Structures are given as C-alpha cells and as structure tokens.
C-alpha cells in the first residue's frame, strides 16, 4: 500500500514537472491570440470566377492565333461567357484542319457544333478543379508575401467556405499596407507598345479608325512627367500577347534609377531572358510597356537588346518600390481577392485585455480558494493543490500542442477552475455524507471517491460533447475557448479524481486509526 502510494506521488510530481517544463518560460512558449497580442485578422474570398474566365480567354486567344497561322482567316473566335466561347465561319474545306487544332482543347472543353460553327463549354469538373487550384495558388502566394513581410507566426489558411482564406498577422498594425500587399494581383506583363500614349481612349481607337485589331489592346497608364507634376491618365495601344510575364522573373529588388529615385530592378530566369532578348532585339527604338495589373507603370524606350536585367520606374515612394518588389518576388495571384471580414486590435488594447483577463482570473482564483479553505479546512488545501495542478497541466498541454491563448481562452481557464472546484465539492460533500454513517474516515474517503467517480465522468463527458461542437463550428477566439475547455476538462478528471485521492490517502496513511477528518 505504502509503496503503491509512493509511485502515485512520483507520477503526479513527474506530470507536474513535465507540464512546467513545457510551458516555461510562459512568455515564449504560450502563444497569444490576436485579441491579446494585437494584430490583423482578415478573411478574403478568392474570386475563383477569374481563374475560370482566364482559362477560357487564353484558350480562345491561343486558338485565334493558331487559326491565323493555319490560314483560316475568316473564322472568328468570341468569348461569350466565363466558361464558354464560340468559333464561327469555319469554311467546310478547312474543317478537318480546324479539328486537328483541338487536341489540347477537347479534354478541357465540351464541344457542340452547328453549320460551320462550334460552341466550347468548359467541362464542369475542370471548372471545379480550376477554382480549387486558384484558391491553393492564392494561398501559397499570400503565404510567400506574408513571409516576406517578416511577420512572426502568421497564419494563412483555408477558411470555412470553399473559396475563403484566413490571414492572421500578429503584431501588424498598418492594416492598409498589409491589405494592399496581400490583395494586389501583382500580374506583371511586359508588352510592346504599338502606338501611344494617347490622352484618352477614344483617341487611341481613332488611330485605328475605330477598328482595333483583335491582337491589340488599349491599356491605361500613368503619364510620365517631371517629378512633382500631377500625374494624369494616358492610354497606350499594346500587343495583347505579352513579351514576358512575371512568371519569367527570377527575382526583383528595390533599387534607384539614374536620377536617384526609388525603382524596382528585376532579373529574368533563363527562359525569360531568351524571350526577352529576342523581343527587345526585334523592337529597338520602340517603347516597352511595363504593365502591372493591367495598368502601364512606365513605358521606356528600348535602346538596345536587353537579356536578363531590367528596371521599373514610376513615381514610387521608397516604400511603394519595396512593396512592389516584394509582390513581384512572391508571384502573381491567379484571381482577384475581396475582403469579407477585417478585425484589427491595437497592441495597447491587447495589453489592456491581458491585464484585465489575468487580473480577473487571479481575483476569481483567490476568492474561490479562500472560500474552499474557509469551508473545508484541511481538505480545502487538498482542493487548492488540485486546482493549481490543474492550471499547470492546462498551461503545459496548451504550450505542448501549440494552442493559441485568446481572451475567451482566459475565460475558459476560469471555467476550468469552476469545474475543478465542482468536482472537489462533489467529492467532499459525498465524503461528509459517508462520514455521517460512521464507517471511519478511510472507508468514507474511499466510498466517496468511488460513488462520485461515475458522476464526474458523466458530467465531464457531457461537457466534452458541448466543447467538441463548439470547436467544430466555432471560429477564431471561440475555438480557443473550446480548446481550453477541452484540455481543462481532461486534466480536471486527472486532478480531481487521481491527485485529490492520492492526497487524501497521503494524509490518512500517516495515521493508524482515523475516525475524523478535517473536511
């Protein structure tokens, strides 16, 4: 019996030591949630429609190009909806040649044909796949950008809805900048300028007699004036197919232009350098439009063949240049994003919350402890020990599994204290009852624990069910609460039943004959 008791005590001491080890030092190992640390919480929606539309658009563009090289010049390709395009006016004698072009398209689009015309509709499973991929890509891109921002312990994850992404940036207070960096598509395209700049769009159309060839497009841009001039909007006519895109970049960094103004330098990867060299060689003395998110940032004149190095300069501030370089490095987003939810907690409010929450917890703890000591005397100490052990275990487990401590989490702590006290009260009251029937202290303690064990099990399982659903359906802070509660309930079974009982046995083992108990 005594040996048995020694092992129990050792086990308890070991568990406590392990718990303390895993959360010490607490300021390093216990993760604080945004509501305590301050920071930004964002939920974005990926406009997955964009990815589908883009696929349809590029497929149609490519087909148009191929038709031209095949000499089927009368045919027209028009995009009619994000998932559908139509090809018309295929001469009957060219039909076999046209069908030959479709080997790449058929796996992606369903085809229905009429007289010399075809309608292509994206296959539903492909559309679903594209949407899903666009969310994954967006997630990865945002992750890279957030990492480049240098935020400690950011969270970038899929949110509840299929197309939603959750971003949490602890410690970040400049919401506008963070939002801008995350949201901007950062699609970089270098396109050869055919004509321009024009002061307005109509003038650009006029230059082509209002009949713009399908391989050209009009892109707005910022007029390049002397520094300090008020920038206006101008329009360029550029080739639709870019010479190189952001995908061909190897890296980008903030730099200065020849006038010492902030700029962004980039270098191409091998493939990009080949394409870029050929295009610049063929277009010396023409302008090259640097198009970012469908807007011309600048349109420098090509003076010589450029292989792998280039520089973008617009009217950047140094921070804008740094942010642009960051966005280019992390790649373009496959689809645009909209914000669904935005929460910012200033660091001062977070600090205030911690102070208040901790103060309240300690206050509650002290009040409850005083009551237990007053009401249960010696056994009250037993209750205190199990409450403190419970809190240690809770902290230790939370640190161990890397759970985040939120404000409702602190409330969960308080609730755990409540549950722990309840278990102790249940047991103590039962022991008192058993003592009345005068079986001696040892039997009373033993019977009390045995009888109450089932009750404690039932109450804890029921609470665990509630906490489980809370975790399942809850978000953010609520999850933190459910997490704390779940861990608290588990450690509570251990402390209330095992630790508390061992303590009683320890007290009783010191004495031979025990008829009374201070309870």
């Amino acid at each position: 019996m005594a040996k048995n008791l020694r092992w129990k005590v050792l086990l308890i001491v070991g568990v406590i030591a392990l718990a303390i080890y895993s959360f010490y030092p607490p300021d390093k190992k216990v993760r604080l949630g945004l509501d305590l640390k301050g920071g930004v919480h964002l939920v974005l929606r990926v406009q997955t429609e964009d990815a589908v539309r883009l696929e349809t658009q590029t497929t149609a563009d490519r087909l148009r190009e191929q038709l031209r090289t095949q000499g089927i010049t009368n045919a027209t390709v028009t995009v009619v909806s994000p998932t559908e395009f139509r090809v018309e006016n295929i001469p009957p004698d060219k039909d076999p040649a046209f069908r030959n072009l479709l080997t790449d398209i058929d796996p992606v689009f369903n085809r229905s044909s009429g007289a010399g015309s075809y309608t292509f509709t994206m296959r539903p499973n492909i559309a679903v796949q594209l949407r899903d991929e666009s969310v994954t890509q967006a997630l990865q891109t945002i992750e890279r950008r957030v990492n480049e921002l240098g935020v400690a312990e950011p969270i970038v994850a899929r949110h509840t809805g299929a197309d939603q992404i959750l971003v949490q940036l602890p410690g970040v207070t400049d919401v506008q900048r963070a939002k801008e960096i995350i949201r901007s598509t950062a699609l970089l395209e270098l396109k050869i300028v055919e004509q321009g700049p024009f002061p307005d769009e109509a003038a650009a159309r006029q230059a082509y007699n209002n009949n713009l060839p399908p391989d050209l497009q009009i892109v707005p841009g910022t007029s390049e004036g002397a520094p300090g001039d008020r920038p206006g909007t101008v329009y360029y006519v550029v080739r639709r197919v870019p010479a190189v895109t952001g995908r061909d970049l190897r890296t980008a960094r903030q730099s200065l232009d020849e006038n010492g103004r902030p700029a962004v330098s980039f270098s191409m990867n091998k493939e990009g350098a080949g394409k870029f060299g050929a295009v610049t060689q063929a277009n010396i003395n023409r302008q090259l439009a640097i198009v970012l998110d469908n807007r011309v940032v600048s349109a420098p004149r090509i003076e010589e063949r450029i292989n792998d190095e280039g520089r973008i300069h617009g009217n950047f501030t140094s921070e804008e240049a740094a942010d642009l370089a960051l966005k280019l490095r992390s790649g373009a987003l496959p689809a645009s994003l909209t914000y669904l939810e935005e929460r910012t907690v200033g660091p001062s409010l977070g600090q205030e919350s911690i102070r208040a929450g901790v103060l309240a917890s300690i206050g509650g703890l002290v009040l409850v402890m005083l009551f237990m000591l007053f009401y249960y005397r010696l056994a009250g100490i037993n209750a205190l020990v199990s409450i403190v052990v419970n809190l240690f275990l809770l902290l230790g487990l939370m640190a161990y599994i890397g759970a985040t401590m939120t404000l409702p989490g602190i409330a969960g702590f308080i609730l755990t204290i409540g549950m722990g006290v309840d278990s102790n009260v249940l047991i103590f009251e039962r022991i008192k009852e058993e003592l009345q029937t005068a079986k001696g202290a040892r039997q009373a303690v033993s019977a009390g624990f045995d009888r109450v064990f089932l009750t404690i099990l039932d109450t804890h399982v029921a609470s665990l069910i509630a906490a489980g659903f809370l975790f399942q359906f809850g978000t953010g802070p609520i999850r933190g609460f459910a997490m704390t509660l779940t861990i608290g309930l588990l450690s509570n079974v251990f402390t209330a039943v095992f630790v508390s009982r061992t303590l009683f046995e320890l007290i009783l083992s010191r004495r031979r004959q025990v008829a009374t108990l201070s309870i």
Partner: protein
Amino acid sequence: MQILRNPNYNFIRWRWQAIALSAIVIMAGFVMIAARGLPLGIDFSGGTLMVIKFEQNVHEDAVRSAISGIPGDKVIQPYGDPSERAWLIRLPLGGPEQGTSLEQGAQAVVNALQQANVGKFEVISQEIVGPVIGRDLQLKGIYATLASIVGITAYIALRFRFAFAVGAIVATLHDVLVTIAFLTFFGYDLSLNVVAAILTITGYSVNDTIVIFDRVRENLRGMRRESLEHVVNLSVNQTLGRTIITAGTTFLAVFSLFLFGGEVLRGFAFTMLVGIVSGTYSTVFIAAAIAIILTGKQAKRRGTTAAKPAAGGRKAS
C-alpha cells in the same frame, strides 16, 4: 462545517409555480425581441465596429455631431471607464461587398472626426464583418447550439432514461432562452463571445442536472418502492449542499471576470452570471419536474400506476 445540515425541502411541490415563473420570463423576453428585434452584434449582423481613443476628454455630442453625416443607424457609446476617453462607434452594414468598400465606413468615420477637429485620436480596434461572414457565423452559432443539445440528449438518454434526457434538454433550452431574455432586458448584443458563453451555460446546466440524476439513479436502486417524486426530491436535497457551493464559487469566479475582466469580456461574463443562476434554478425546479411529469404520463399510459403509487406527499425520512 456545513451550510445545510440534512436539508429537506419539498422542491417538487413547487414545480407548476416554477414552470409558470420561467414561462413568464421567457415570454417577456420574446415580447421584447418581437418589439425590438434580436440584438445581434456585428459578428452576426455584419457592419463596422470601431473603438476610438481620444487624447483629451471629448463630449459625446461632439463625437455624435462629427459623424452625423455618415448614413445609417449609428451607435455611439462610451467604451470602458470614462477616464479611458474611449468611444465605441458602430455602423450598420453598407454598400456592396467589395474589397474597396468594406472599410469605407471606418474610413468615413476617421475622415469625419479629423474634419470636425474634435481632438487627436487613435483607432485602437476596428472590426468589419461583411454580410457573407455574418450569415456564416449565424448559421454556425445555430448549428453549434443544436448539435451540442442533440449530442448531450443522446448521451443522457443512453446513460439514464429518456424522460431524464428530455428533462435535461428542456432545462437547457430554458437556460438559453432565459439568458437571451436577460441579454435583451439589459441591452447586451449577441456577439460570438456571448454565444460561447451561452454554449458554456448549456454544458454547465447539463452538468448540474446530471449530478442530480446520477443521485436519483443511485437512490432508485435502493428504494424501488418509493415514488419517483419522493426519490427525486430526496436526491435534490442530498445534493443541495454541492449545488449551492458550486454555483456560489463559479458565480464568484465569473463575478470577478465581470468586474475586472475589462470591456471586451463584459458581455461574456454577464451572460455567464445569468446562466449560472438560471442553470441552478432550472436544475432544481425544471429538469427534475419535467422528468417526473413525463414518467408519470408514461406510467399512466401503460396502466402500471400500481407499481409507482402517486403518493407524492410523503416526506423524506
């Protein structure tokens, strides 16, 4: 030391009065909600919530008139202690849900305050919830509550009798409704944190009920000849000390949260306070009463009244 030495109150006798009292509170809550609408926080309704801290003391009217140009029903309240000089401003959901327009309301408030020249200020927290998220969270809140109620009912039905499970669930629903009624009386908004508190109460109330039911189950084994009414009343009395002490200590802990937990936790703590009182009350007066009423009906229907005589008046020994 003992608060109550062998208590022997006839709680079950008061069951109809208790049910009537609860019905009145809940009905009053419904009337209030029907008149004013459910006080949804921005988590569920969507909208903008800002906390703005001024460097100097600013009168409420100054803040109000500064942002009077912004359309929609605005709420302006002092946030925390007056010495904090912080104000809470809430704007309704506005505009289509576009990335650019989500923060429009917040931006407008900042611009308006700057133009009105009411003094230097800092936005210390800003929450903007779009309609999609609001709807999402509403659904989830309802799902979580329903799912946990179904889960707990199933567990109690498994461990005890079905009539007990119904009793526990009626008591739990009672607590949820009473709490929502009190939230409306005292003008607290239903936020995510408050829903968490309500769900905690659910667990807490069931916890209380199970303790008594466990005792009923244990007592029934030894007293097969006694009426259920008598056994339940005895069990409620036997566990009364524990019920009071636990409710008292938990109340103490949460009261400390309510007083010192800061503005962010106030709604949460208030909900818990109401829930603890209601949970204890419903355990003693509602859960057991329903279980007895249901068991009585079942027994009558089966014509086995002889096995459980309706000798409810007999006192506990």
